[in-house]
């Protein structure tokens, strides 16, 4: 577990490094744009892959284009950032203890440190992408029959120069029959792991992702362990990654294990997954009954964004707009009775709204 969280950090660093490299090449375009660009490249072509067991009730069957929208990204990050306590919990990484430092600080210094901590939280609560599985297409560059039988095995050539994002790195293979082609995804993965090894990643898929071991982990509610480890091991558009995460999300939804994800980076990804595929009623009910009304509103917002043909009569005016929720419940939800009952029970409590709390804070 400790290794996972440590390596997870590395993975996040790698992602942001790649993103930075991308932005440098694209004359400092904004990060969102860059992500969208990657997304568009990822989503180009037909979306294949097995998504058995999913109710693709959404008319738009490709989550990639929705996920990288700016408003969706900010909404998901907001959802993650509502509870940052888990980021700052004591972590047991097997590194040994270090002394706790105490400092004298002025108000300005303290505020600076608090801002730094929020940056740290934002960094560790980045939402892992929810994408459709990648498509395997091998581009042939040339065919030289003169080179046939040059070697018994294929030769792979990798550009290992620095400063190139891994997705854009040139890797080509020469087959024994003389064909020169772009490397397949597996070959790319292997070469990248050889020249730019990521801590915690292995060449082989670890045994923990076998169905029997996954089942045992689910039963022990080790959801964050699975999801963190999957983030470390796979690329986000890997069919393995998508099947493992979606099965884990399904299990969490069936067994109401939402609290295990709360405060982790997977909370937003789960919310997106559940809203995109239109099975948000159970989670919505849980959000309202645990007074997380802002999360409920975000969830419904994502539901509408992923279905451009359905529009609410009025957009949500505040982060805890109950009318917005009421409209969803009456128009689109499947468990209308239960949801409206939970919402009315919540309204009877007369809890202060977000605006009122902000006023109190000032």
């Amino acid at each position, binding site marked *: 577990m400790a290794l996972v969280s440590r390596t997870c950090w590395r993975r996040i660093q790698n992602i942001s490094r790649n993103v930075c490299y991308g932005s440098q090449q694209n004359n400092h375009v904004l990060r969102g744009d860059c992500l969208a660009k990657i997304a568009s490249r990822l989503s180009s072509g037909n979306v294949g892959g097995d998504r058995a067991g999913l109710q693709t009730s959404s008319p738009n069957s490709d989550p990639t284009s929705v996920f990288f929208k700016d408003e969706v990204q900010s909404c998901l990050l907001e959802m993650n950032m509502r509870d940052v306590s888990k*980021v*700052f*919990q*004591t*972590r*047991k*990484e097997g590194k040994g*203890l*270090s*002394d*706790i*430092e*105490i*400092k*004298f*600080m*002025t*108000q*300005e*210094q*303290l505020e600076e*440190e*608090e801002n*730094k*901590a929020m940056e*740290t939280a934002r960094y*560790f609560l980045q939402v892992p992408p929810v994408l459709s599985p990648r498509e395997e297409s091998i581009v042939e560059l040339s065919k030289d029959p003169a080179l046939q039988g040059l070697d018994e095995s294929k030769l792979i050539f990798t550009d290992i120069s620095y400063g190139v994002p891994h997705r854009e790195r040139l890797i080509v293979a020469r087959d024994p029959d003389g064909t020169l082609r772009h490397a397949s995804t597996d070959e790319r993965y292997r070469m990248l792991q050889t020249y730019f090894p990521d801590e915690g990643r*292995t060449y*082989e898929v*670890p*045994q923990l992702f076998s169905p029997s071991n996954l089942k045992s982990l689910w039963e022990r509610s080790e959801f964050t362990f699975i999801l963190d480890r999957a983030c470390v091991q796979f690329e986000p558009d890997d069919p393995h990654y998508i099947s493992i995460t979606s099965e884990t999300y399904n299990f969490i939804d069936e067994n109401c294990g939402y609290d295990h994800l709360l405060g982790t980076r997977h909370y937003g990804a789960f919310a997106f997954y559940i809203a995109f595929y239109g099975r948000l009623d159970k989670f919505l009910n849980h959000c309202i009954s645990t007074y997380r009304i802002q999360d409920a509103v975000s969830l419904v917002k994502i539901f509408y964004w992923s279905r451009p043909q359905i529009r609410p009569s009025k957009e949500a005016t505040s982060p805890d707009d109950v009318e917005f929720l009421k409209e969803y419940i009456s128009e689109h939800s499947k468990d209308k009775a239960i949801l409206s009952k939970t919402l009315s029970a919540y309204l009877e409590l007369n809890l202060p709204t977000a605006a009122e709390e902000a006023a109190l804070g000032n």
Partner: protein
Amino acid sequence: MIGQMRAAFAKLVIAGQAQLPLSRICLQLTCPNVQQVRSAVTGFNSHNSDQLWKSISVVSKNGARRGRGKKVNARVIKDLYRNQVLGDGKVKMVWPGLNTSVVRGRQIVQQEKLDTPKEDPNEAVREAKEEKLARRKLHPLDRGFSSANICGRNLKNTTNLELHKDFDFRVVDNRNVCHMTGLVGRYQTAAVVVACGNGNGLIGLGAGKSMLRLKAVQKASTRAMNRLVYIERHNNHTVLHDFFSHFYATKVFVSRKPEGHGLKCHRVIALICKLAGIKDIHVKVEGSTMPMNVAKAFVLGLVRQKTYQDLAEDKKLHVVEFDSLRRNFPNVLASPTVCRKNADIPTTESLDFTQHALDGRVRYVKPRQPPFFTKLKGWEVHLKKEERSRGYRQNLYELTAKYGETRSFLADKYPEARQKNKIYKF
């Protein structure tokens, strides 16, 4: 015996009180058939049983002064006939004159055998005779620093003293002190220091002296209870801040440690920490390590700790904690009523918290030297040899995970060349 009886009768006859039948008895007593018994006066018939008992169990004052009976306490002194029921044994018998009266009404009681009882009335006595001496075994957590000395011992579980039920009592120091007097000479006294605590911030130290060690312990325990002090702890696991304290020639440098660090300190300080409820600490004792002074220096330092609020008010700055295990989240421990601004702080002022808490002292931490063998030539040879097998263990794990055995990449081509016996199970 007969001689004594004869003498008694002779006295009666002389007094003229003896009648005729008595003179007849006298004749019978002088009968040559009765054997004469020597009536020598020995140690056994000239002393009573108490005197005899004392003679083997106690050493006289003069004897003790000469060094006799030094092992007198080690020897078992047992009265083997205590509680013995006379006339009773495995077989229940009626012995007229011994365990019953001779005459019952007008009839003379006859000697007879009764039904054998189930229990022998002298069973306990027999057991006491057969019992062998064995040292009383103490629980390892109760017996203290070493088995023979009472230092560090848990008094509640090892003595019968009446102690407060909510507190634990442990012996910190145990010494024999003496002075010379004209009358007695070397006058020995037991001096004992006891610490008590409730494991939740209360701690007391007490010293007691007495001729008897147990009395000294009782005295010290009572004094410890009378001198309880409350000490502040951070999150019930460590001290508030690093501090320095001293008592006579003993100096202690105490460091605050994160949870899970444990007690890395002098055994006396570890004992006090356990009683007070401190779980994580590092203490370096410098100078004299006399247990009583170590304990006093430490407790004094604990009591003189400043609370975070006091420190914040002193400096007029926030006191903020940064833990790398918590990703350096600024955890505000205390805030002053009025906080200074950046511009108000002179450049000469030191803002080092540890230095402030140690009153400007700096503890010299000796840098760790590499072990001696790293300088030897053989170490280099060893490193070169080891380099070949680096990553071996990791490889073993990976191969076993993949194939269930360690195998070379040629195993598919030449299956007969596999190491059949090299199957590892984890």
